């Protein structure tokens, strides 16, 4: 195994510490293995070749003993184990290495289920991926009701549970529940379940409270060893029909969610299907084969790249100034009382827990805005997400004012008024007349120039773009836009506020439509353009299904609203007339007051079709639409990088993942453009070096 051990050269080794424990009630001695990498819970236990080898050695020593009644495995405080060392996995270069990694995990973990004495996993904390698989190999499991996360997130990244999970879990809890953990949850924003839910699904045989979880687990284990407590298992494999039905149901879900774009969930489905009839050797070998295929595929590498962006880069935004420069924000002003403004007020009040004042010239709109916040607070209360005291606090924090005087002691004022440069300039001038010299003025504009907005102010250095994505409570991205004169303290404050709002932020240069809207508009422009030329809407709209985007271009148009889309398209057309066209048909659709091309039943609205229909036109084929749209993206991304709109291609990808919901297996967008060869065709070079988000050469 030296081959892969060398690859994982900076493995944080999870040690297997073994101590003998006298089981209560004279049930004999248990060899209790503690998995512990020597760090606190902020660095969870993971498995690489060295850790697996240590566990193997511990199990060898245990297997050689004849004085044991049982073997136990538990984690360090708060953490059981969270799976394979992904940093190392990204460094695997050859298929042989990938297979070795799969085999090693199987060979070590399966020993837990093949000892002469029963084995027990005491799942005391987070158990994910390979960590959960360790537990699944044991004869029995207990779980703490305090466990915050149980998951098999492999499919989310583009892998399959490859150390026994697909074979053991369906037999333990049945194929339907297993597929929920293996496929459904990972494909639903990587949902994780808690200890109680895991117990309910049958993942664990017993559940105990965290206060004395290990002690009570050991007592329970002692009763199992002595036969006082019996654990029964349902023979799920006996019902071939139910097994197949569960697999078929999950397949339909996968088709709906990824439309064939990512191979991993399909491989997982096949493995679960196989698990009913395959023996351990056959099943584990099939897992290793799938693992190796996926590890040697670019979709997974893009997934690992995406995961790293979201986990690391999003937390340390490239180009953000020193955090220490940030000013304190103790009161927030929101100009406007429309829906967006109200949503912002709610978010600021919830996360910053400081007073938030909405202003509007119209008392009725103001009442409506504040009323919206209060109603949303009541909804949170009704769902039990906040207590009555917290609800009172939040309602007390949000108020409305007809004049901007109420901003006098605010530290951060954000405007969410109509997208018109003159209006916004006037609003900022009015605000500046009231607030102190260091108050940050933020704009939620999606396409107007921040520098121009600040130009006539006394303190233009305090203006910053703070661009949310709709719905603001859900989408995790904030584009933070630095105007030409924005100073570091303002920018640092904006990043600090974003962090408190629990948003991931990316620093963007003041440029037309910033990142997400600029790329989505370019991409949609090509698709709409094709329809303008005569390609049927259905053909054009499904031409890019292969990317597995969360929604088709016309569905996105409907979500954004044709008027907003048209406005952004016009802005970008003015800036880059040769690359951004304004579709006359889209303008007509807006004029007709249509919400989009789709009717409520998701069929195409005949009137909308009529607007786009062109006599005798023959637009490009679906394949041509795809090619055009992707070429356009490759061109635009390259131009944006040359213009230094963001620091690096990674930031573009982070924006597309977090702001547009583009999938992990596309790596945002640049890894996809690289691996499809489009980047090279259009720009004569890749965006990322081979190996960064693809299999190393």
């Amino acid at each position, binding site marked *: 195994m030296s081959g892969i051990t060398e690859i994982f050269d900076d493995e944080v080794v999870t040690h297997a510490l073994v101590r003998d424990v006298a089981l*209560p009630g004279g049930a004999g001695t248990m060899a*209790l293995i503690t998995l512990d990498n020597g760090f606190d819970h902020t660095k969870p236990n993971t498995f690489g070749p060295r850790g697996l080898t240590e566990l193997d050695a511990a199990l060898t020593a245990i297997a050689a003993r004849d004085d044991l009644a049982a073997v136990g495995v538990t984690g360090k405080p708060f953490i059981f184990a969270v799976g394979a060392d992904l940093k190392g996995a990204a460094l695997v270069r050859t298929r042989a290495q990938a297979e070795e990694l799969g085999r090693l995990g199987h060979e070590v973990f399966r020993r837990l289920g093949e000892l002469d004495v029963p084995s027990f996993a005491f799942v005391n904390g987070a158990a994910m991926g390979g960590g959960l698989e360790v537990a699944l190999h044991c004869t029995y499991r207990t779980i703490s009701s305090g466990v915050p996360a149980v998951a098999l997130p492999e499919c989310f990244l583009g892998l399959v549970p490859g150390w026994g999970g697909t074979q053991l879990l369906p037999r333990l809890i049945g194929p339907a529940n297993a597929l929920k953990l293996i496929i459904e949850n990972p494909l639903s924003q990587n949902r994780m379940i808690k200890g109680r839910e895991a117990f309910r699904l049958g993942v664990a045989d017993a559940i105990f409270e965290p206060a004395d979880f290990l002690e009570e687990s050991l007592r329970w284990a002692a009763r199992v060893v002595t036969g006082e407590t019996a654990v029964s298992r349902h023979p799920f494999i006996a019902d071939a029909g139910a097994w197949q039905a569960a697999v078929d149901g999950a397949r339909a879900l996968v088709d709906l969610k990824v439309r064939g774009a990512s191979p991993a969930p399909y491989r997982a489905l096949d493995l679960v299907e196989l698990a009913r009839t395959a023996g351990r050797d056959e099943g584990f070998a099939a897992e290793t084969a799938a693992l190796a295929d996926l590890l040697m595929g670019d979709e997974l590498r893009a997934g690992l790249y995406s995961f790293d962006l979201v986990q690391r880069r999003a937390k340390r935004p490239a180009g953000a100034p020193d955090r220490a420069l940030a000013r304190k924000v103790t009161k927030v002003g929101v100009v406007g009382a429309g829906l967006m403004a109200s949503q912002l007020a709610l978010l600021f009040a919830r996360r910053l827990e400081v007073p938030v004042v909405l202003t509007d010239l119209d008392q009725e709109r103001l009442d409506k805005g504040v009323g919206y916040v209060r109603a949303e607070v009541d909804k949170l209360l009704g769902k039990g997400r906040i207590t009555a005291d917290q609800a009172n606090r939040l309602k007390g924090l949000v108020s409305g004012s007809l004049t901007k005087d109420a901003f006098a002691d605010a530290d951060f004022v954000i405007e969410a008024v109509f997208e018109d440069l003159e209006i916004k300039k006037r609003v900022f001038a009015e605000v500046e007349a009231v607030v102190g010299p260091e108050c940050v003025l933020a704009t939620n504009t999606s396409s107007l120039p921040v520098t121009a907005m600040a130009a006539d102010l006394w303190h233009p250095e305090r203006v910053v773009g703070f661009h949310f994505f709709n719905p603001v409570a859900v989408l995790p991205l904030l584009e933070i836009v630095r105007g030409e004169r924005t100073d570091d303290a303002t920018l640092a404050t904006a990043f600090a506020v974003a962090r408190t709002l629990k948003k991931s932020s990316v620093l963007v240069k003041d440029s037309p439509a910033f990142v997400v809207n600029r790329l989505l508009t370019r991409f949609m422009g090509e698709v709409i353009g094709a329809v303008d030329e005569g390609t049927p809407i259905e053909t054009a709209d499904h031409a890019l299904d292969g990317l597995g985007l969360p929604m088709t271009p016309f569905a996105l148009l409907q979500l954004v609203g044709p008027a907003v889309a048209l406005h952004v398209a016009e802005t970008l057309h003015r800036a880059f007339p040769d690359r951004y066209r304004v579709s006359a048909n889209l303008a007509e659709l807006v004029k007709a007051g249509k919400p989009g091309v789709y009717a409520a039943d998701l069929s195409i609205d005949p009137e909308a079709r009529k607007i786009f229909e062109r006599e005798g036109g023959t637009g490009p084929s679906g394949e041509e639409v795809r090619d055009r749209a992707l070429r356009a993206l490759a061109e635009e991304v390259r131009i944006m990088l040359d213009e230094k709109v963001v620091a690096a291609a990674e930031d573009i990808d982070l924006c597309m993942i977090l702001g547009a919901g583009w999938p992990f297996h596309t790596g945002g967008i640049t890894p996809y453009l690289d691996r499809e060869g489009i980047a090279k065709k259009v720009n004569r070079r890749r965006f990322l070096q081979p190996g960064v988000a693809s299999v190393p050469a």
Partner: protein
Amino acid sequence: MPSSRDVVFVDGVRTPFGRSGPKGLYAETRADDLVVRVIRELMRRNPGLPPERVDEVAIAATTQIGDQGLTIGRSAAVLAGLPKSVPGYAIDRMCAGAMTAVTSVAGGIAFGAYDVAIAGGVEHMGRHPMGEGVDPNPRFLSEKLVDGSALIMGMTAENLHDRYPEISKERADAYAVASQEKVAKAYADGRIQLDLVPTATRKAAEGWGLATEDEPPRPGTTMAGLAALKTPFRPHGRVTAGNAAGLNDGATGCVVAAADVAAELGLTARMRLVSYAFAGVDPEVMGVGPIPSTERALRLAGLTIDDLGLIEINEAFAVQVLAFLSHFGIPDDDPRVNPYGGAIAFGHPLASSGVRLMTQLARQFGDRPDVRYGVTTMCVGMGMGGTVIWENLAWEGAK
């Protein structure tokens, strides 16, 4: 509506005791976690007791700092998952902390303020060495309020040998050997394990373990072995690590209730509180404290020493037990005294020990329906003694 109700001892448990220090069982275990484990075990063993019916949680600790601070009775109650409506407090009378926790809540029960309470104590002498953070008032010495030896418990034990010259080092050692032998026998008979709660122990370098037995006992201790030990408190003195309790970590707890409420909830009452007393003595001979406190408790109960069929006396030092016995004319090896052995073997995590005595007395009462009365007594630093007299509710004479 002040009242006076019978107060009963329902059940007691403790963690196994550990030796203090970096190699000890609980070297890396928090003191409050030990208390939490005890409270949860009491609730588990007494399912008839609804958690919301616990009216008070009184937990003693001598050094109320860090994991023994933060009003440990309340914080341990919250950590143990008792309803937030259950109050708690911290209490301190050094070695008699847990004993005082019991008498305090018992007073409250008799008065009618509580129906049921949890009382106990903890001392992690490894994390909180004796005397940690103390700041004795200089007047103690400048005005000769106490002797300079008063704050060093081993020295007070040496002083006690001076006061009772007939108690030789050999007698003390013989008593200690017997204590070790009695503990070994009680373990062999399975009497101790019944009231121990297995407790998780984790050490960063070794992983998780489980404490299921006391660590301090040294079975096989001999006179010859003890004779070789140093006398750290005085050159050629008499007090050694072998004839004294050690430095230990552990927690204890018990359920105390009004007799009528115990009956209502179906809790098994095992002992009835008859009387209690605390008394002060010269701090430099604190070991004689149990003599006046026991005399006072007997007087309050209208009993004499001869009425007591079982005596659980804390063995801080062998000399202090022997002083008590000789005062009352009881032989050194009287079978009524510490039948399961004592703190010389089990260990003495200061503020926790009082409830260990009661738990063991309750266990012995169950085995001895012929005994009607028993006592738990202990000496206390700064010159005090504490005594609680109990009636055996399994006494055959009552039937």
